[in-house]
């Protein structure tokens, strides 16, 4: 409150019994709340409380070395929503992308495939071509009977 405001209020209080009553009532309430607190503070010696605080802090300092190691292994930050949700999303995406590659069916004879099979009255010819060795195998069957017996 500024000085002019104070003068104004004090002037009003001289003239207004209602505001005077309200002020007295407020001061009485303040006194009820405040005076027991002030009396308690006055009687209390608090410096010994510092000794308890200091002891607590020093013991925490001793533990901080262990805490440092523990924090290093602490996974709690990973469990927070802000980290967990993107991490799960990335993992699911990676699984979706790699699954087709991992579960792709491969031939029992990798690198070898039938290039051509030719049938005729006398011989049947099958041509194999190996991919790695760059080698071509030509398989000549003597006749349809022999082929039937070997299959």
């Amino acid at each position, binding site marked *: 409150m500024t000085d002019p405001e104070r003068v104004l209020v004090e002037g009003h209080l001289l003239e207004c*019994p209602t505001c005077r009553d309200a002020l007295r*009532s407020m001061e009485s309430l*303040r006194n*009820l709340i405040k005076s*027991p607190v002030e009396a*308690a*503070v006055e009687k209390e010696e*608090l410096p010994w409380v*510092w000794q308890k605080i200091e002891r607590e802090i*020093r013991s925490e300092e001793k533990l901080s070395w262990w805490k440092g190691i523990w924090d290093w292994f602490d996974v709690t930050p990973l469990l927070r929503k802000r980290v967990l949700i993107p991490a799960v999303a990335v993992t699911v995406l990676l699984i979706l992308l790699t699954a087709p590659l991992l579960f792709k069916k491969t031939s029992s004879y990798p690198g070898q495939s039938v290039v051509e099979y030719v049938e005729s009255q006398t011989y049947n010819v099958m041509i194999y071509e190996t991919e790695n060795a760059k080698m071509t195998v030509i398989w000549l069957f003597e006749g349809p009977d022999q082929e039937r017996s070997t299959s």
Partner: protein
Amino acid sequence: MDYDEAEVISRCQQGDADALKGIFDQYHKKVYRIAYGVVRQREDALDIVQEVFIKLFRSIKKFKGRSHFYTYLYRMTMNTAIDHTRKMKRQPPLNREEDRGVQLSDDAEKRPDRILAHKELEERVKLAMDKLPPEQKAALIFREVEGLSYQEMAEAMGCSIGTVMSRLHYGRKKIQELLKDYVLEGKEG
């Protein structure tokens, strides 16, 4: 010895426990006053003082200096005291009569009838304060016990000045009603 608050806070933020002692020396009575204002019991108020300064040491790194340090500390004290009251409400009451009330020094004040009257009044004030919502209780203590301005209260309570005034108004009104036998009606003559 001069108390350079900015320097002491900075040292405390670097983990210097001796710097905390500087803050304790400067503020322990104010912290005790707020704590006692809320719980109105000596032992509980002392526990709160201890808890507040330990909490402060752990969390002072978070203090960025955007508000006054004392309003930051008062807010921490008020929150700790209100939490303490909530915990106490959940626990069965202990018979701690010897802990209750003010120690009277004046000989006249030591008369049994005066002691009894004081105790009764203290108990009534405590019961009335406990019936207030925490925000109104905090506003009344900051204003009537600690004498903070509306601006300081707004900073300590993290709300607007208008909200502070509203909480104070309703808090006063309610406690006047609860303590009407003890509060002077104000009628002259």
